[in-house]
């Protein structure tokens, strides 16, 4: 592409890693690259799956994880520490959800209660009027050691319909936490007996997880159940991210990225408003379908009356970049229908291990994109990556480290041919 976009690249920019995205993979990449000594800039294009998370921290979809509990990838623990606000419990984590199950996880948002070590002990489930929260249905669903407990948790009028995140924000205030602790102690002693822990709806802080503070005040472990998407854990993630990025000096800009292309010795990233950013390496961590990094765009969606000139891939990256999309370790094929593929063949629940859950950028283990030296991918946008929080974090950390290391190496030495005749990378 020859255009005004191909202006000169500042020498300093070649020493910089650009991270496209702002979710957990992008954050891990930015922190890792920064720790490896690179200057880093994060381009925030809006929220995605990380902000919609409900606080469970998984390496694989958890039902698979239960069957095959593998070790943590090397960089995970460090990346989680750098982010802050999350816990990897020794001996695993068990989380209760507002859908009524107790499920395993690798770790958790620190506000969530780990009920694993409490097995057999009496756990209170507070009765309170919050959307979708019915202690009398949840306690028996979670198990015999859970008991519904009458407690005053809501303090002000209207809190019964306040969004999760807003109610959580009110609990950042220490006075409110004191009040809540007092109410919970009152309730527990009124009910009598010994209580090992208290489960509350997702409301324990927006800035930070307040579970620990509350537990200290109450004298029993307190924590949240995992609730609906778009609640307090997502907000806490964003705040943890902002703190961690600020502490490590990562620069930040709001930009929805339109294209990423090579520009002489660097990579140039163009935003939708025409902003341009240069860097020696770029990590694409734009999320999958949820985050908007990938798009399902069958031809018919844009069809007026005429069919497109040729068949095309129905799954595409939402930004322009010279990367190959694939799934199952192979490049994506063009559908032999001008209208696009049959959803029955590629989507859940018709297809098991569906293409829609696997498609993404074909990348190597360290996130590097074959044939595009200096370009990396991490998180849900990567083909065949498990769509799981902790897996995204780990892949972000790997890609960030690798991106920092490749800075300064000449970008023109590797053959651009390799993307065409090389073996596509496969992931475990």
């Amino acid at each position, binding site marked *: 592409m020859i255009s005004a976009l191909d202006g000169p690249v500042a020498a300093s920019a070649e020493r910089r890693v650009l991270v496209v995205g702002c979710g957990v993979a992008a954050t891990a990449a930015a922190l890792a690259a920064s720790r490896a000594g690179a200057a880093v800039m994060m381009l925030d294009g809006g929220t995605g*799956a990380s902000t*919609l998370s*409900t606080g*469970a921290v*998984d390496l694989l*979809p*958890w*039902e698979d994880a239960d069957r095959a509990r593998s070790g943590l990838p090397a960089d995970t623990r460090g990346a989680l520490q750098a982010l802050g606000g999350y816990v990897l419990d020794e001996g695993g984590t068990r989380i209760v*959800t*507002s*859908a*009524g*199950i107790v*499920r395993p996880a690798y770790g958790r948002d620190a506000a969530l209660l780990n009920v694993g070590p409490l097995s057999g002990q009496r756990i209170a489930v507070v009765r309170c*009027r919050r*959307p*979708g929260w*019915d202690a*009398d*249905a*949840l306690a*028996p*669903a979670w198990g015999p050691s859970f008991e519904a407990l009458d407690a005053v948790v809501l303090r002000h009028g209207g809190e*019964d319909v306040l969004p999760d995140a807003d109610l959580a924000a009110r609990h950042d205030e220490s006075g409110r936490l004191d009040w809540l602790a007092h109410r919970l102690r009152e309730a527990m002693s009124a009910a009598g007996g010994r209580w090992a822990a208290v489960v509350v709806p997702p409301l324990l802080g927006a800035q930070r997880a307040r579970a620990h503070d509350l537990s200290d005040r109450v004298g029993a472990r307190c924590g949240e159940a*995992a609730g*609906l*998407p778009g609640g307090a854990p997502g907000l806490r993630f964003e705040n943890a991210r902002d703190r961690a990025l600020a502490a490590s000096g990562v620069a930040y800009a709001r930009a929805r990225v339109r294209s990423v292309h090579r520009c002489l010795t660097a990579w140039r990233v163009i935003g939708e408003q025409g902003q341009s950013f240069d860097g020696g390496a770029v990590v694409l961590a734009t999320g*999958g*379908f*949820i985050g*908007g990094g990938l*798009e*399902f*765009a*069958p031809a*018919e*969606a*844009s*069809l*007026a*009356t005429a069919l497109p000139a040729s068949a095309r891939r129905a799954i595409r990256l939402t930004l322009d970049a010279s990367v190959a999309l694939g799934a199952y370790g192979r490049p994506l094929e063009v559908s032999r229908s001008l*209208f696009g593929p*049959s*959803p*029955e063949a590629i*989507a*859940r*629940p*018709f297809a098991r291990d569906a293409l*829609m*859950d696997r498609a993404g950028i074909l990348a190597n283990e360290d996130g590097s994109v074959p044939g595009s030296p200096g370009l990396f991918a991490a998180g849900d946008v990567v083909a065949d990556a498990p*769509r799981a929080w902790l897996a995204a974090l780990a892949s972000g950390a790997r890609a960030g480290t690798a991106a920092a290391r490749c800075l300064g190496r000449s970008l023109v030495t590797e053959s651009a041919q390799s993307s065409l005749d090389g073996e596509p990378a496969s992931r475990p």
Partner: protein
Amino acid sequence: MAEGSVPSLLPPPVAGMALADGSGSDEVDVAIVGGGINGTGAARDFALRGLRVALFERNDLAFGASGNSSGMIHGGVRYLSRSPHVTETSCRDSGYIQRIAPHLLFRIPFLMPLRSGPAARVALELVDAYFRAYDDFQPLKRGEPHCRLDPTDLARLEPGLVGALAGGVSFDEWGVDGVRLCVLNALDAIEHGARVYPHTSVESVARSVRGDERSRYVVDARDRLDGTSVRIRARAIVNATGAWAPVTAGLIGVPQARVRVRPGKGIHVVLDRRIANFGILSEAIDGRQIFLEPWQNVSVLGTTDDDYYGDLDEVHATSEEVRYLVQGVARVFPSVRLARAIGTYAGVRPTLYEYGRNEDALSRNHRIVDHGADGAPMVYSMIGGKLASYRLFAQELCDLVAPRDFGVNVPCSTHTRPLPGAERVPDAVETAATYGITPVAARRLVYRHGGRALRILERAARRPSELDVTCICEPVLEAEVRHVVREELARTVDDVARRTRLGLGPCGGMRCAARCGQIVAQERERSPAEGRLMAREFIHRQGLARAVALGPQQARQEALTFAHLDASLGRSS
């Protein structure tokens, strides 16, 4: 003719049928098989005439064609040229349904644009004349007469219409929630003494060994959810199983050839909101008439009509059918492509059998088959029919059966007596203020339940947490979920969704299915695990119906829905 002297296809009499309970509570006058609109309509009519009725439905009420129709009790303008009496009876009965369930009906004005072309002027004259004839029937259903529109009118009324248009007409139809109509008929029947058994499959119908007229038939049925069996003695049997009619005939032991239907699969695509103020008629690529209609909170594209040979309990739309409809409507209303398709639904029409005709040309008429001639006295089949004329069909059956077989000469009253909740329909805004719920929730609640909305809210006023919104898309209050389980025979999350539209909106049950499962399990005193299983089944079933209409925006929602449900409820299998 003495009984037994006619060669009968019925199985031989069953011995040892003595029942423990001699009180006669297991005896009814009429056993109806099928809980669609024909079965529930007939149950209500029989019950209002004082006959004892039992109704068996293998799945849920309105599970088949009745709950998956275009949602109109339209006047059958399509049938005007071929069978004008179908149009007339449809219009007249549409008027009656307005009288007995005013809260359930909403006006859908339609536009029929005609594209410019060599014969457009002639076509417009013909259409104009055609609708002038239809206007004669409109007063029967309080419909407005048609208007002839020029291209400027069309553009003003519906700016989304594209292409060179020669003009068009407007006409007037009524929308209805077919499931609610079935449920209300069943409820009224129950309130007049009928027994209704949903999820209960009839396993056999045998001639009683007693042979007396009071208990001629023994119906054995099994509850498909909990496995319990039900035995009912009935004097008369009605097969009202729609597309299942020949299958049911086999169970009863009457010749299938006498109740042949030509099952015609019809699918609809649901868009996330009302994208037009008018229903819009369009032509599919094969010249068939299809439409886009604003319907309750959503828009609906319909419909296909294809011979169906598959499993009647598992009817699903395919992406092929979805594309056919979207292509056809997009030709005149292209923004249909930009809207998010949030699902599909499919049903199988029980059209009267004919060989060698195109599906669209088949009659929508109905027919009562008297199986007396097949050696099965007092066994009847209701074949064919349309939602709009269900009441008339039921009346015809009861007018025949009640006096002849039971000596009951009570006249039909199904067209004058209001359905449950229709006696007095409260004002939604006032209701919202009285009970402290949002006007939107109140409006939806009053739409579905009429005056019974107050009964639901009264109960909830004593238990304020039941005023919480369980499904925010529709919205559905927790109290309504509990009500349909307690009072409207809902037993699963699917059943609740059918009656309340919970989980059928844009979020696809992501936020409400698990909670609904908890409530149903609580109300039915089942284990929490059973509630979760119901939620998963609902999600799986809806997932199949959504995936076939997958577009760019919905792909994003699907990914989120599955990610959330996997994390909070466990992966559905």
